[in-house]
C-alpha cells in the first residue's frame, strides 16, 4: 500500500510527539555548542502543525507536506525553521499532486529535501549539520528504492543511515551554523540538527511499518 495524505499526516503527528519527548535532549545538545533552543523551536513548530492538521488534513501527500512547510517556516524561526521548512517545501513540490506515494516518490522527496537544505544553508557533508544526517539517508533511501524496496524499507534504511550520519558529527569541527563560532571546541558534541533529522526519519520509518 502506498502512502496517503492521511498517513503522511499521521506520521507527522508521530513526529510531533517524538519531538516533544526529545525537546529537552535537543535543547541540551544545542546548549553545548549553540544557543539552547533547537528542541524548543522544533517543538513549537510541530505543535502548531498538529493544531493545523487537527483542523483539516489536506487531500494529497504533497499538500500535507506543503502545509507542514509553511507552518514550520512561519512558526519555528532560527536556522532550523527555514531549513526544515525548505526541506518540506521541496519534498512537497517533488511529490506533486499524487494521491499516494510509492517508494520511489518517497526517496525522491527525501532527495529534494536535501537539495533544498543545501541550497539554503550551503553546508556540505562534514560541516557538522543536519546535512550529515540527511545526505547518507538520501543515498540509502535511493538505493533501497532502486532495488525494489517498499516505502517502509526506504524509510527504515534512511533512518538507519541518518542515525549513523548524526553520530558521525560528534568528532567533527563545525563549519556552519552557530557551532562554527566555537572552532575546535565544537568537536566532541553531537550536532542537534543532525540528531533531530535522525529522530524525524526514525519516526517516519516507524509510522510506515
Amino acid at each position, binding site marked *: 500500500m502506498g502512502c496517503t495524505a492521511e498517513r503522511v499526516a499521521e506520521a507527522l503527528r508521530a513526529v510531533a510527539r517524538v519531538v516533544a519527548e526529545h525537546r529537552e535532549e535537543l535543547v541540551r545538545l544545542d546548549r553545548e555548542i549553540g544557543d539552547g*533552543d533547537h528542541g524548543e523551536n522544533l517543538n513549537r513548530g510541530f505543535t502548531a502543525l498538529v493544531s493545523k492538521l487537527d483542523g483539516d488534513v489536506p487531500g494529497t501527500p504533497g499538500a500535507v507536506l506543503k502545509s507542514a512547510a509553511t507552518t514550520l517556516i512561519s512558526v519555528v524561526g*532560527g536556522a532550523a525553521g527555514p531549513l526544515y521548512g525548505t526541506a518540506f517545501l521541496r519534498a512537497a513540490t517533488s511529490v506533486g499532486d499524487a494521491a499516494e506515494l510509492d517508494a520511489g516518490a518517497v526517496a525522491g522527496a527525501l532527495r529534494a529535501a536535501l537539495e533544498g537544505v543545501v541550497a539554503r544553508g550551503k553546508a556540505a557533508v562534514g560541516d557538522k549539520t543536519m546535512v550529515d544526517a540527511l545526505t547518507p539517508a538520501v543515498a540509502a533511501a535511493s538505493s533501497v528504492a532502486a532495488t525494489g524496496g517498499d516505502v517502509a524499507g526506504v524509510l527504515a534504511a534512511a533512518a538507519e543511515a541518518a542515525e549513523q550520519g548524526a553520530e558521525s558529527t560528534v568528532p567533527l569541527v563545525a563549519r556552519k551554523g552557530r557551532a562554527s563560532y566555537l*572552532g575546535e571546541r565544537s568537536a566532541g558534541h553531537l550536532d542537534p540538527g543532525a540528531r533531530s533529522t535522525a529522530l524525524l526519519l526514525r519516526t517516519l520509518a516507524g509510522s510506515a511499518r
Partner: protein
Amino acid sequence: MKKIINDPATVVADALRGMELAHADLLDVQYDPAVVVRVDAPVPRKVAVVSGGGSGHEPLHAGFVGRGMLDAACPGAVFTSPTPDQVLAAVQRTNGGAGALLIVKNYTGDVLNFETAAELAAAEGIEVRSVVVDDDVAVKDSLHTAGRRGVGGTVLLEKIVGAAAERGVDLDGCEALARKVAGQVRSMGLALAPCTVPHAGEPSFTLADDEMELGIGIHGEPGRQRVPVRPADSLVPALLDPILGDLPFGAGDRVLLFTNGMGGTPLLELYLAHGIAERLLAERGITVRRRLVGPYITSLEMQGMSLTLLKLDDELVELWDAPVRTAALRWGL
C-alpha cells in the same frame, strides 16, 4: 531558574504587553505575528528601517523603534531569529512607498528568515534591501565558520541609518550608508557569568569561579577562549586589542566608543571599563569623539561586557547626533 515570568512559552508576548503599555506614545505592538512598529507608521515617502532578531537582547531591537531610528522591530522567541511572517508584516506595516531596509545580524537563522521575507516582500512589489552586520572580531570570518556574528555594531548602525532615513535619504543611500557603517565597526565581548534561557531552564554554559569567557556571543554561545579572570586593566585590552588590530584602527582615527553591558553587569563596572578603554585609545592617538555606555545589546542576565568601535567621519558624527526618540535612546526630541 529564577525569573520574573509566568510561562516560558509566552514570555515574549507577555513582555511586549508591558512594553506596549509603557511606551504607548512611541510604539504599536502587533502580536500575531509579533511586530513592534513606531506609532506613526507608515511614514509617507520615508525608507522603512526594519530590524529584528531573537528576544532576550533588550533594549535591542524594540527599544530602538521610534523617530530617528527603527520603523519596526521583529522580536523572535528568546534567542531565536524571527520568522519571515514577522519580517514581512513589519515591512508591510511600515513601508511608506520608499521601500524598506532590513538590518540583519549575521546568524544563519536571521539571514535565512530575513532572506525569505525579502523575497516575499519583493513578490508583493515592495522594494527591499538587506544589510548584514557582522562586527564580532572574536569569530574568524573564514570558510570554516558561519562568518562573524552581528553584535554591538548593530545598535550604532540602526541609529545612524535611522537618522538618515528620517532625513529623507532614499533606499540606495540608506543601503550604502548601512554598508559603510557595517564596514567600519568592530566589536568584542566577554562573559563573567552565564545567562539562562527561560525554556532551557539551566544556564547556557558554566564557568568556574575564576574563569571568564573571552569572545562570548550574545546568545550565550560559548566564546573562543576560556581564560582566568583578571583585573579590569588587563581585561579591557583583551577586548580592545583584537578590535584595533582588525579594521585596523590607528593613530589619527576618530571613533565612537560603545561600552556595552551584557545585562547583568553593574553600570559602575561599565563606566570603570569605559574609562580604561578611553585611556588606552588616547595612548594610541585615537580620538574618541562620541560614546555610548550602558546595557543596549544584552544577553538576558549574563554578566559581562563588550566594546564596539566605529570609525567616524563628519557625516557619521552628524547622523549620530541627530534627534532620536525611542524607549532606549533619546535625545534632541
